[in-house]
């Protein structure tokens, strides 16, 4: 964990725009998740049944207990963690699709409990590229979509996390969603 401090050569906080710090932050997150997973394995001898949001909250709490990493503010941590989740989900869908291509297996669309189909596999794969483009253009909008859509946080939870009003989060989510839909409908990210 100390390496995170070491990576910040001055007194300034390490932020996302700093590639080295971002890389180190990912390393810290990775290490913390690793520790949590190992602890749960030791306890249960099977992978823990934590929800995604609980997992991320716990990882953050563990990290923030350590005064060495006070530079890692919670919104930034959550945004990175949500991006990890997004990457894992999309990679998983891609892997499943390539394994089953041409076979009998039919990729089920992502149906909700209410029976609404929210996105099929190819939409989800396209979304990954477009989200990368949005993250370049308006990182906050991309983070909100990753937190809400891929991790299941509510507007209220994201608002509390970021210290802004729920309406602001909702508006930004609507704007990010509009960008995503527009870029996907036009078959390419805006550049």
């Amino acid at each position, binding site marked *: 964990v100390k390496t995170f401090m070491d990576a910040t050569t001055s007194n300034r906080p390490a932020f996302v725009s700093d590639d080295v710090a971002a890389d180190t932050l*990912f390393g810290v997150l990775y290490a913390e998740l690793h520790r949590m997973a190992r602890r749960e394995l030791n306890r249960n001898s099977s992978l*823990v049944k934590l*929800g*995604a949001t609980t997992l991320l909250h716990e990882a953050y709490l563990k990290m923030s207990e350590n005064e060495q990493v006070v530079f890692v503010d919670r919104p930034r941590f959550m945004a990175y963690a949500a991006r990890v989740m997004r990457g894992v989900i999309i990679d998983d869908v891609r892997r499943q699709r390539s394994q089953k291509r041409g076979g009998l297996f039919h990729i089920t669309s992502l149906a909700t409990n209410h029976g609404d189909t929210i996105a099929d596999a190819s939409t989800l794969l396209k979304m990954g590229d477009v989200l990368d483009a949005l*993250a370049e*253009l308006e990182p906050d909008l991309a983070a909100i979509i990753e937190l809400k859509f891929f991790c299941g946080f509510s507007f209220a939870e994201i608002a509390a996390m970021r210290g802004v009003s729920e*309406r602001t989060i909702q508006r930004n989510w609507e704007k990010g969603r509009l960008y995503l*839909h527009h870029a996907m409908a036009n078959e390419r990210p805006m*550049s």
Partner: protein
Amino acid sequence: VVQLSADRWRTLSPYLDRALDMTSEKRAVWLASIATDDATLAADLESLLAEHQDLQASRFLENAVPRAHSDRARHLLQEALVNGLRVQRTRRWS
């Protein structure tokens, strides 16, 4: 369909912030006033806002990825961690 560059999006973005907080009646008046100065801007905004209305109606992306998917992702993440394999990084991190 409006083709938007990143620059165009940056121009439109603050207008969208304002528009999304307006009632549809207020929005129409506001767009009309913009159109007198910049017809292209008003037309682009109108088109995007119509797209937004469609997304609202169809509840696009409103429901999170199903729990089964995020659970599976979490398991994969944990497995990857437990096995000491690095989860593939996004371009940003590599």
